[in-house]
């Protein structure tokens, strides 16, 4: 019984980090109607940036975020401006292809620079652990979860208590109508994309501290994040949060009660089962013909 409680706790804590990464993805989809496949590679890039800052400048991982998050924000702006904005027709499909290409380029550059050996971020809180009612948990799980809570709260305040946030939510509800009432939808898209990518820097740090990774890890990540946002309902932030926690708990519990080998498979099979019942995801709206 104890191990199940332990699995649930780790699941919730890692789920928080996944919520951080998937909220960027689903936010971008909600505003721009594009799927950013590159998010997996961007998370890994964020992890490597933290790795470089730590190895060569000996910066603390959390302090390093003050550099990596703005840097990734700028990278996000550049990607949106150069590659996403020119897409006019059939944005969903073309965005998948374009961002897949960007992911390949990032993966290529990373494997050229860092090779394919696995690395992991180091800090005292990665190795030290805390006693929680009988089992030990590395501090990084708790710190990573707190980081996610802080950033997601920040995102919430930004979306619901600022003028920019109002524009973002208006664009999510109806892009055309938002443009008609004078919102600069292109600018909102640009900033949203930047925010989504900046969040991956933080997600990458937390991911890199709890897992060893190499440039190839991006595939595993993106498939999980896609499952999460589809399950939650595309474009629904609330759905992404709940789906992240739910999926990671299910995965960790499967790993202890059945086998770690099959935990990822359960993850994907759950998606199929849910979509058989609700093709639009848990919090999504039915997609049909565009009115």
């Amino acid at each position, binding site marked *: 019984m104890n191990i199940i409680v332990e699995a649930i706790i780790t699941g919730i804590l890692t789920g928080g980090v996944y919520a951080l990464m998937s909220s960027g993805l689903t936010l971008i*989809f909600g505003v721009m109607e594009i*799927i950013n496949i590159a998010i997996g590679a961007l998370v890994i890039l964020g992890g490597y940036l933290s790795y470089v800052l730590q190895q060569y400048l000996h910066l603390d991982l959390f302090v390093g975020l003050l550099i990596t998050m703005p840097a990734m924000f700028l990278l996000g702006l550049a990607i949106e401006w150069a*590659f996403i904005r*020119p*897409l*006019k*027709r*059939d944005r*969903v*499909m*073309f965005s*998948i*292809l*374009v961002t*897949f*290409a*960007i*992911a*390949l*380029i990032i*993966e*290529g*550059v*990373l*494997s*050229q*620079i860092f090779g394919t050996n696995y690395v992991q971020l180091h800090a005292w809180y990665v190795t030290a652990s805390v006693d929680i009612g009988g089992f030990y948990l590395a501090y990084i799980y708790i710190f990573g979860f707190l980081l996610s809570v802080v950033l997601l709260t920040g995102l919430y305040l930004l979306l619901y208590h600022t003028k920019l946030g109002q524009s973002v939510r208006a664009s999510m509800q109806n892009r055309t109508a938002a443009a008609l009432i004078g919102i600069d939808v292109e600018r909102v898209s640009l900033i949203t994309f930047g925010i989504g990518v900046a969040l991956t820097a933080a997600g990458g740090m937390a991911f890199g501290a709890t897992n060893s990774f190499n*440039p190839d890890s991006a*595939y595993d990540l993106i*498939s999980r994040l*896609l*499952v999460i946002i*589809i399950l939650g309902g*595309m474009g629904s932030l609330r759905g992404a949060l709940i789906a992240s926690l739910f999926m990671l708990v299910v995965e960790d519990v499967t790993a202890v009660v059945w086998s770690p*080998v*099959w935990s*990822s*498979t359960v993850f*994907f*099979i759950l*998606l*199929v089962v849910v*979509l*058989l019942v609700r*093709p*639009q*995801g848990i919090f999504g709206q039915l*997609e*049909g*013909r565009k009115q």
Partner: protein
Amino acid sequence: MRLLKIAGLLILLAFAIAFPLLFPNPAITTVAVFTLMFAAAATAWNIFSGYTGYIALGHAVFFGTGAYTLAIMCQDWHIPAGYAPFYLLPLVGLVAAIIAIPLGIIALRTRRHTFIVITIAFFFIFQLMAYNLRGLTNGSAGIELPIPTWSGDFYNDPFYYVTLAVLLLALVVSWWVRNSKYGLGLLAIRDDEDRALGLGVKTGPSKLTAFVISAFFVGILGGVYAYFIEVGIYPAVVFDPLYDIAIALMSFMGGIGTLSGPIIGALILEPTQQYFTLAYGENGWYLVVYGAMFLVIILLLPRGIVPTISERWARWQASRRNTPEEVVVAVASGSAVAASQETQPMVERNEGAKEVNL
């Protein structure tokens, strides 16, 4: 004009058949075999995704299933090396097609981006199963296939002709679909699925049939590939996410939904890729070049080579035939067509050219 076209196709076919005799160098025929494999796979992918507009990014599921099916059959039935594995290929395709039925039924309940993501999820489920079902697939240790008994300069030739045959068959099916009432239904689904359903197209069975047909061919190609590469098959090699994207990219480059587009895309991309792999090895730069090529194609030629060229050709023809004023009208209506396409997804890409002619 029609005669000219048939003669041209016959010359192309003769060239394709004579190719290993003209260029017996094994390095060249190896590239040729891979190119044909991708041309056939892209053609098969196009039968489903190109005509219905449902972009599937999980066809490596069928490729890997085909590869493992042939490997397991050879292992369990003690198939001798030689031509015998080739005779099993239809059976291999059938297994892939049967697997495609439940996958199709599940995935085709959804549309657009959800469909794409589900096909990606299926891909990862199958890759994980290839790693984890050790009793069946031998896990990450992979399965050895019998090594073909022929060798030397002749080694590639049987593979070349088998793959060419698969390509021609896929092409004939694709042509038939494009020109049949059934294919018209698929195109209607691509343009507006709900309206197609309202007009009496049996959208569900139509989509599923196309999905299964394309899985059949891709499965066969997986079998050919498994026998061809000699070194045995591994989960990461035959269930490769790059395969999913490669055949989609080739079809996009040539022109999705056209007959010749996927082949032209494969003829350009696969030799380029093989060249880079040979020249620089499978390192990071190869991925960078591949990704960059991909970006350039999509941003510069979003509609693909074949539709772009056929539209230019049609405009040029129109400008020769018509008086100057009509040219202006024709070009203007052409741009109106282009503009109207922005509002409707995937509609009449290649028909746009014909409208300019009117």
